[in-house]
């Protein structure tokens, strides 16, 4: 669709308000032979039940759940159809109904959207959303091929058999159109991997120099290994409730808004169209921009992300994203996908994305820091869990619990690591609301969610 009907642009509205009261995750690793998948999910689920200052006991909460939504990206990786049934049974939740969600890299975000719909509709007043991926059953290059089957198998998969080769042309086009340098992309990798050093669950934390990033092995030009996320085994869970149940369970619930957008799986098929404007954008402001870049969204931007942002800011009543959001968690599967999103969600106008990093706004202490969790580059991309874990990290920030979740030695011990001596807090000062982006394909499915402090 390149023109919208009036009905297409209706802003979603929950029938009942939706809240998040608890979150949990497992440690994240490349190879996790110590535990079976169900055991990894149980670990995140139990953290959710036990470590969120809930006012009911874990078993009382278990007795309160009515519905479960499960996110899993690929049956290929799990090598198990109906994995949801195994996990659900393992969590002792039969005969409550459950549903499996699959929208590629956006599976986690979509799972929360579906859980929120269950709450908003009244089907449930207490809903579990859990996600996972076990990407360690195959070697990395087979994993790369599996993921590349999430490109069009007739026209694209054979052209690279690795997802970086579908993002890299976007990076080259973006650099050509908007003057993005290798150095700015490297800054994102350095920033997020550094933040991951404070996260006990992180898979690939590290303090890197620009030279290290830019001299790391080439995956698909210009994207180097240190600019790409890794494959992960792990899980994440959140608990969603209606208003009454939320305050029964927690003194610090967080309100949930989430919307989605989509675009063709083949970037090739993205025909030029008008830019749907965010509340802070004025008609005509892109006239000059479009003279130079007449193919929007082209290879530079994501309609799916822009459309989700178009809806979510109206749904949540946000006018100036960069002023009103206290932190964001973006889908930095590759440095370039991170940069592209800044314009889509209005952290900067299109064409000025680079300034979000260069200005310092994206850093801890900046106006609207991104990926303090370590992001996908530093911490994890266990695909079905990713969008749930990103929400969890925003949730803990809003509850002022970054230090407990990332700094308590018990979590470092659980992950089999020692808390580093130079560990420092990345708690944002008194945050009110944060945003997270869950993103699939080369922008085929994107959810944008907002969590808002509700006490």
């Amino acid at each position, binding site marked *: 669709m390149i023109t919208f009907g009036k009905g297409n642009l209706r802003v979603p509205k929950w029938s009942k308000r939706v809240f998040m009261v608890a979150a949990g995750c497992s440690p994240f690793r490349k190879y996790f*032979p110590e535990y079976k998948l169900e055991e990894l999910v149980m670990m995140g689920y139990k953290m959710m039940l036990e470590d969120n200052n809930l006012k009911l006991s874990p078993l009382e909460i278990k007795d309160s759940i009515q519905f479960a939504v499960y996110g899993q990206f690929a049956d290929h990786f799990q090598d198990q159809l109906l994995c949801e049934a195994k996990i659900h049974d393992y969590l002792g939740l039969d005969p409550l109904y459950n549903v499996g969600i699959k929208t590629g890299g956006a599976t986690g975000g979509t799972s929360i959207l579906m859980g929120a719909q269950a709450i908003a509709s009244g089907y449930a007043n207490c809903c579990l959303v859990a996600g996972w991926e076990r990407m360690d059953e195959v070697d990395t290059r087979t994993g790369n091929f599996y993921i590349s089957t999430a490109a069009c198998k007739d026209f694209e998969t054979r052209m690279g058999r690795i997802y970086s080769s579908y993002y890299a*042309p976007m990076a080259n086009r973006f650099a050509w159109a908007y003057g993005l340098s290798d150095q700015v992309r490297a800054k994102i990798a350095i920033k997020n991997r550094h933040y991951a050093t404070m996260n006990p669950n992180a898979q690939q934390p590290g303090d890197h120099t620009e030279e290290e990033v830019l001299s790391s092995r080439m995956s*698909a030009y210009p994207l180097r290994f240190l600019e790409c996320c890794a494959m992960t085994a792990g899980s994440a869970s959140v608990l969603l409730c209606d208003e009454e149940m939320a305050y029964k369970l927690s003194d610090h619930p967080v309100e949930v808004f989430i919307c989605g957008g989509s675009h063709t799986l083949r970037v090739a098929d993205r025909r030029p169209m008008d830019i749907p404007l965010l509340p802070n954008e004025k008609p005509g402001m892109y006239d000059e921009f479009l003279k130079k870049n007449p193919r929007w969204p082209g290879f530079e931007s994501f309609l799916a992300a822009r459309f989700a942002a178009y809806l979510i800011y109206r749904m949540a009543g946000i006018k100036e994203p960069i002023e009103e959001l206290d932190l964001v968690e973006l889908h930095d599967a590759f440095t370039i996908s991170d940069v592209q999103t800044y314009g889509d969600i209005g952290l900067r106008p299109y064409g000025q994305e680079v300034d979000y990093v260069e200005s310092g706004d994206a850093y801890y202490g900046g106006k609207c820091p991104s990926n303090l969790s370590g992001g996908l580059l530093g911490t994890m991309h266990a695909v079905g869990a990713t969008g749930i874990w990103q929400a969890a990290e925003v949730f803990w920030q809003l509850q002022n619990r970054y230090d407990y979740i990332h700094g308590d030695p018990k979590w470092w011990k659980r992950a089999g690591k020692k808390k580093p001596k130079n560990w420092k807090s990345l708690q944002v000062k008194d945050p009110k609301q944060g945003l997270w982006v869950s993103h699939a394909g080369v922008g085929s499915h994107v959810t944008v969610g907002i969590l808002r402090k509700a006490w």
Partner: protein
Amino acid sequence: MAKPAYEKAITTKYIGTPLKLHDEKPAWVIESPRAMTHIHTYGLLTPFFEGLTKGKLMATKCVNPKCPQGSTWLPPRADCPDCYERMKWVKVPSVGTIYSFTLVDYAGIGIEMKTPYWQIDVAIKGVDTIFKGYLESGKPEIGMKVKAKFRTEKPTHTILDVCWVPA
């Protein structure tokens, strides 16, 4: 007459291949091998793939006068997403310009081209989409003119039957 199996007492024999232990510590990890063939149809896009083997680049065009867009698609698709009418096959020029590119250096398993190679996206006049392919020779840059080259002998029966060379 022999009794059917369901009326017999049966002694069961294991006829599989024992799995290898990949790891014994910290837990048993087994190796479970796989080899399989998928039977995949090109359906209504068969003329496109057949066209490549005859040196033709075929796109689909929506000719419905009531269609709000009337786009020309390459990759082709049989049905128009804007008006839902069946589209018409048209031959498109075998020349274009490079819209973007990448060097595929580290590829996933089963890659059919020797790495590294240049993957390119080609804009073609009269086509509303951008067509992904690979450059058989040369070094790409955005805006560079290229022409299509077809694998008319020993075709692969895949999208790899077309590639591009500098024009």
